[in-house]
């Protein structure tokens, strides 16, 4: 008890105390905890104060792994979010159909060729190097090797989805997200979407969304087109 007289160690103060009060962990929302920041500043503080304590480091590591696991579980569990508030009621008039009028347009072949010049200049500048997209999800922390099992499971699911997509895009080269998730329960559709994000992060698929219809289109990243290439020479 003699050591209790000494001032409380820094890591029992906020914000690091989160890592040392297990009974409180379950009540916290894991998304509100920035593990990377906590651990980095914990190490920094330890170096600064010279209070090197391997037990404390071990506990901190254990707690952050637990918080990380909680986050991962939430991500895959995906409890249905609360239903959105009901829209206010109002009289919705029928659509107004525009009268049809023929209208001559002013675009001539000259305009077409003026812009063609621009496009061809752009074509020369294009180096068709694939730029690697910025990771959409944060990289998993390297200090948490015990979560590899979970990542392996994700990779398995990614592989499954990837081969399914490869089958689906045959021909068109494109498949709509709505086609991929047709007849699938909402929760599974969300899971599929998360896996798609992982695939996109790896550059194995490309995603883009039509702003109007909100449809998401998926292509396989390594698609090669022979016919198009010939015509481009």
């Amino acid at each position: 008890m003699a050591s209790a007289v000494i001032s409380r160690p820094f890591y029992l103060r906020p914000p690091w105390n989160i890592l040392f009060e297990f009974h409180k962990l379950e009540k916290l929302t894991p998304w509100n905890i920035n593990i990377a920041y906590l651990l980095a500043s914990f190490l920094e503080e330890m170096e600064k104060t010279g209070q090197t304590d391997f037990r404390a480091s071990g506990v901190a590591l254990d707690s952050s792994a637990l918080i990380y696991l909680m986050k991962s579980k939430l991500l895959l569990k995906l409890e249905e979010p609360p239903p959105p508030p009901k829209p206010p009621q109002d009289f919705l008039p029928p659509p107004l159909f525009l009268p049809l009028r023929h209208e001559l347009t002013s675009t001539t072949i000259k305009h077409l060729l003026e812009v063609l010049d621009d496009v061809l200049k752009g074509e020369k500048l294009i180096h068709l190097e694939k730029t690697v997209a910025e990771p959409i999800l944060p990289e998993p922390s390297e200090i948490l090797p015990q979560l590899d099992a979970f990542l392996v499971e994700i990779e398995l699911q990614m592989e499954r989805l990837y081969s399914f997509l490869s089958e689906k895009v045959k021909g068109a080269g494109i498949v709509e997200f709505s086609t991929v998730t047709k007849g699938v329960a909402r929760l599974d559709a969300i899971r599929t979407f998360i896996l798609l994000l992982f695939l996109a992060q790896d550059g194995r698929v490309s995603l883009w969304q039509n702003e109007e219809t909100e449809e998401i289109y998926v292509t396989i990243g390594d698609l090669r087109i022979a016919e198009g290439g010939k015509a481009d020479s």
Partner: protein
Amino acid sequence: MQKAEKRIVDLAESLSEKPAVEKMRRDFALLEAALYVAGRPLDLNELCSILKTRSKNKTKKCVKMLMTEYANRNTALEILELKDERYVLQLKAEYTPLVKRLVNRPLLSTGPLKTLSYIAFRQPISQKRVVDVRGHHVYGHIRVLKEMGLIAAERSGRSLVLRTTEYFADYFGLSHEMATMKKELTHVFEDSAKQEKPNP
């Protein structure tokens, strides 16, 4: 070419004024050409400049005779007179559903048209209110409707207020005056509700 014009043609011919008849036919054709290519309402000034005359009276008479000719031909096209002495050539509404698939330009689908009619009916209305009532997808509709010049947005304090434009009123042949336009719209909605009922 029907009664109204024929009477005038007869009259001119009886007075041995062949050149006058020629001139009149030419003016008819010029007005028709102008209305056909413009595909929007033209005002008397624009029509005068096409006829190369300063007489609004003469131009008005001429375009009204052309309107009568179109009415007598009883076909798919009509020339309408809008407010402020503007005139437009267009397809009669009853033919729209029968031929709209031949139109080679993106027509608004039902979703944006519903958003448009809601904005027109409740204007001026905050964008937030439209989104609350119709859902988040209407941001896309609002963008398209703005691009087409059918609605305009303006800031009022911290919110965006939407209203229809003069171009919108012209397109539908509605009054530019908001209270009148809303009354006219109510009639349009009632009519379309009636039309819907027999063919559910």
